[in-house]
C-alpha cells in the first residue's frame, strides 16, 4: 500500500511498489494527461511534475514518491496559479497559446509539451528560442509540430510577461 499526493489529493493504492507511476495514474485514477509512449523515458508523453520538476512517470516506481507532490496535466491550472500567485483559470497561458496557434496535429505529445513548457516558463518566463529548443529537446513529436509549439511557448511567454508587468503598474497607480 502506497500513499501518493496527486494534484493536491492524497491517494492510496495497493499497486506493488515497483509499479511505475504512469500505470497508477492511467489505470487506477483514469487520468488522461500522462499517457504511455515508450515506457523508456525517451519521448515525454507520460511527463508529470514531481515537486515542480518534469519527470517521466513511465519509469518512476511509486515506491520513490512518498511525500512528493505530483502534478499531472489535470492539475496544471491549479499548479500554475499557485506558482504565479494568480487566480486559477480554466487553462494556462501555454494551453491557450497552443489552441490559438492550432499547434497540434494528433496531439498525443501535448501532455509532455504542456508539462515541460510550464516547467520552463515558470523557471524562465522570457526564454530565448534557443533556450526553448534546448529545454524541450527531450520531448518528441512524430507529427512535426515543433515550429508551432515554439511559437506557442513564445506567445505564452509574452502573455505571462504582460500579466506580470501589469501588476506592478496597478500597484503604482494605487
Amino acid at each position, binding site marked *: 500500500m502506497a500513499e501518493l499526493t496527486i494534484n493536491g489529493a492524497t491517494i492510496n493504492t495497493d*499497486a*506493488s511498489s*515497483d*509499479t*511505475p507511476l504512469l*500505470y497508477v495514474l*492511467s*489505470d487506477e485514477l*483514469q487520468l*488522461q*494527461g500522462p*499517457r*504511455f*509512449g*515508450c*515506457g*523508456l523515458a*525517451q*519521448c515525454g*508523453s507520460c511527463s508529470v511534475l514531481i515537486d515542480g520538476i518534469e519527470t517521466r512517470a513511465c519509469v518512476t516506481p511509486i515506491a520513490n514518491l512518498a511525500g512528493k507532490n505530483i502534478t499531472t*496535466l*489535470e492539475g496544471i491550472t491549479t499548479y500554475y496559479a499557485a506558482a504565479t500567485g494568480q487566480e486559477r483559470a480554466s*487553462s494556462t497561458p501555454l*494551453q491557450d497559446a*497552443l*489552441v490559438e496557434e*492550432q499547434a*497540434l*496535429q*494528433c*496531439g*498525443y*505529445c*501535448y*501532455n509532455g509539451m*504542456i508539462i515541460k513548457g510550464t516547467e520552463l516558463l515558470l523557471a524562465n518566463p522570457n526564454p530565448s528560442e534557443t533556450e*526553448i*529548443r*534546448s529545454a*524541450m*529537446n*527531450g*520531448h*518528441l*513529436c*512524430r*507529427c*512535426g*509540430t*515543433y*515550429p*508551432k*509549439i*515554439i511559437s506557442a511557448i513564445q506567445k505564452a511567454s509574452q502573455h505571462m510577461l504582460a500579466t506580470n508587468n501589469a501588476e506592478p503598474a496597478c500597484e503604482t497607480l494605487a
Partner: protein
Amino acid sequence: MNSLKSRLPIKRRSLLKAGGTLVINFSFHPLVNGQTSNPVAGPPDPEQIDSWIAIHADNTATVFIGFAELGQGCSTALLQVAAEELDLSMAQVNTTGLDTHITPNQGGTYSSSAMRRGGPQVQQAAAEARQALLELAAQQLQVPVASLQVNNGIITSSADNNARISYGDLIGDRQFDLAFTGNAPVKNPAEYKLVATAVPRNDIPLKAAGTYRYIQHLCLPGMLHGRIVRPRGQGAYKDGVKVLSVNEASIASIPDARVIRQNDFVGVVAIREWDAVKAAQQLEVNWELPRSLPGNDNLFRQMENGDTNERVALEEGDVTAFNSAAVRTEFKATGPYQAHVPFAPNCALADVSAESALVMCSTQDVYNTRTSIANLLGMETEQVRVQYHEGAGTFGHSCWDDVAQAVALMSQLAGSPVRVQLMRWDEHGWDTYGPAHIGKAKVSADDNGKLVSYEYEGWQHHWSLIETTEQIAKGIPAAEWPPFPAQQINPLTLGGMYDIPNRYLLNHHVPGLDYLKGAWLRSPVDLSFAFVSEQAIDDLAFQLNMDPWQFRQQNISEYHWLGVLNAAAEAANWQSRPAAVNASTSGIVQGRGIGVGTHLASYGGAVAEIEVNTQTGVVNILHLTGAIDAGLVVNTSNVENQIIGQLVQTASRMLLEEVTFNTTNVTSLDWNSYPILRFEQCPEITPVIVQRLDEAPSGAGEEVMAAAAAAIANAFFDATGKRMTMYPFTPERVLATLSA
C-alpha cells in the same frame, strides 16, 4: 462551375418527379443511424440521405463521415463542407466516430483521400438535404422555394416577412427517407463563407485540456490487460514467428498473469497492466531465429541481384535519344527502410463472445479491418463491429491491423474483454515498414537546356498482405499485395512534371517474402524516387551552367507544377545562379536546393537551405519552404499544418531515419536506435498554399515530401559539390561522400 461534385463517385438515381416539381416524401420515422442503442451492422445504404445527415430538433446536424481523424483535422474540414452547403454555423454541426454499425463506407483514409474522396460526397449529401428541407419549408410556409434563404438553419422568405421556420422544426430527429441522387446543385465557390477559411479544429481545445479520449484511454468493463510476446524485432516476412517452447512456469510469480497462445502466437494477460508488462518481459520463450535476412550491409546487393518481376510503367518516344544528346547524366542512389512509429504504439480493445465481436482500434479502414477480424475469428462480418478511435498519428499502415487482430484473438481465447497496448519495441520492431528502394536514372538535355530523354529503373518489394497475427496464429502464409501501381515506381514524381519527349520507366518488383514486412508510409517511396530523379535533373542544370530553378521552369509547362515550383522559389527568395559555385569540402559550408514531386495527385515544390560541417559530417537543415497545390483547400490552417508536418518529417527522414537489421532481426527498437528529429534540429519552416477555389480538392497530406527530399539532396550538392547516393545523411555517410 467546376465544383467538388465533379469527382462524385456515388451512383446516381433519377428523382421521383411529379409535374416537374420535386415531391418530398418524408416518412417521419425516428432516426436510426447512430441514434439508437442497438444499431445493426453496416454499412448504411450510401444511397439514402439519412446515411449521411441527421437534423435534430435543436436545429443542429450530425454528419456521418466515413473518414478517420488521424490528426490531420479532416473531422473539422468535412464538417466545414457540410455546414457550408447546409447554411449552418460550425457550432451547429457535429459528427460521430467511425463505426461499422453507424458510419458510411467511404473507403480507407489513405492517399490523402479524406477531402479528395470524402469532400464531394459530404458536400453533395448536404446540398441535397438542404434542397429537401427547402422544398418542405415551401410547402409548410406556402411560399415559392425560390423565395427562401437560409441562415444558421433558419429559413426565411423574401415573399413573406412573417414566414420563418427552422430545419429542426421541419424534420428534427426524424428521417428524410429520401434517395441520395447526387443531383442537387452545390454552392458556387464565390459564395463560400466557411470553406477555404482557417476554421479552428474542434478537437484541439479538448486535446490541450487533456480531456480528449484517445484509444489508449478507453476501457471495457471487466477487461484484462494484454501484451503480445514476440522476438525483439522481426525477421524475414516469410518466417513470421516460430516458437520452440514456452515455459509458462516462468511467470508463476506474477499473480493472475497467464499465457494466451495459439500456434506461434503468444501473448499474456493480467488484471493489472504492470503485471502484463512484467509477464511479457519475464516469460521464457525459445524462438527459432533463422538467419534469413540480408542485413543492412547486403540489402541492396540482394535486391538488385535477385530474381525480379519487371513491368514497364511508362513508355513514350524513344529513349535511345539519350545517346546523341548534348548533356547526359546517369545517377544511381538508394533509400532505406523507414518506419511509421506513431508517437504512441498502437493499442486496441476487444470483447469477443460466441455471438459477436466488438473491436476498438485505430485502423485507417474500419470495414476492411472488420473483414480481416471476421476471418480470423471464424465469424460472419455482420457479427463483428469495428470502431475507430484516434491514437497517435500513424502516417500510413503502422501496426493497427496487427494489434486489432491480436486483441480480438486474445479476447476470444481468454473469454473476456482484453486491452492490448503494444510496447515501444513491438511497434518499432514489427512495423510494416516503408520499403527500401534502389533507383537508377538516365536523363539528357539539349544544348538549350530542354530535356531530351528520361529513363528510370526502380527496385522495391510490395506491401505485406497478411498480418503477423493471422500468419502465426492460423498458419496463413506470408503474401504480398497484388501488383497494383501505388506500390511501384511513380510516373508522376519520376519526371511526370516535365515536358520530355522520350520517357521509359521500368519497375523491378523484388519478391518481398525474404525481406522485412512492408506497407504504405506517408508518400510511399516518393522520397526515394525524388532523391534519385531530382538529383539527376539537377545535374543536367549544373552541367549546363544553369540556375536549377530556371532549368526546371523552362522544362515545365503544366500550370500546377509551374505554380508550386515558382511559389516555393519565390517564398524562399531564390536568387538565380548555377549550383555549387561556392561549393567546398572544408569547414562549415552552406547550400540551397530546389525540387518538385508529389504522390498520386496534387503538386509539391520545395526549397531547402542546409549547412554541412565537413569535419564532423553533421548536416543541419536551416530552412525548408514547401508549396502544395491541392486544388480547393477547404481549411487553410489544416493544410498549413500538414505542410509543416511534412517538411519536418522529411527533414527527419533525410537526416536520421533508417531501420537497422542484421541477418536475424530488426535492431532499431526505440527512439535511440531509430532516432527522429528533435526540437534543436528542427529547421525554420515556411508553408505555402497554392489555393484553387475552382478546382476539386486533391489531397494535401503527403504531396510536398518528395520535393523536400530532393531539395535537401540538391542543397547538399550546392554546398559541397558532391552528391549523396544514400540517405539518411548520417555523419559517416557524409564524410565518406566528401572524401570520395
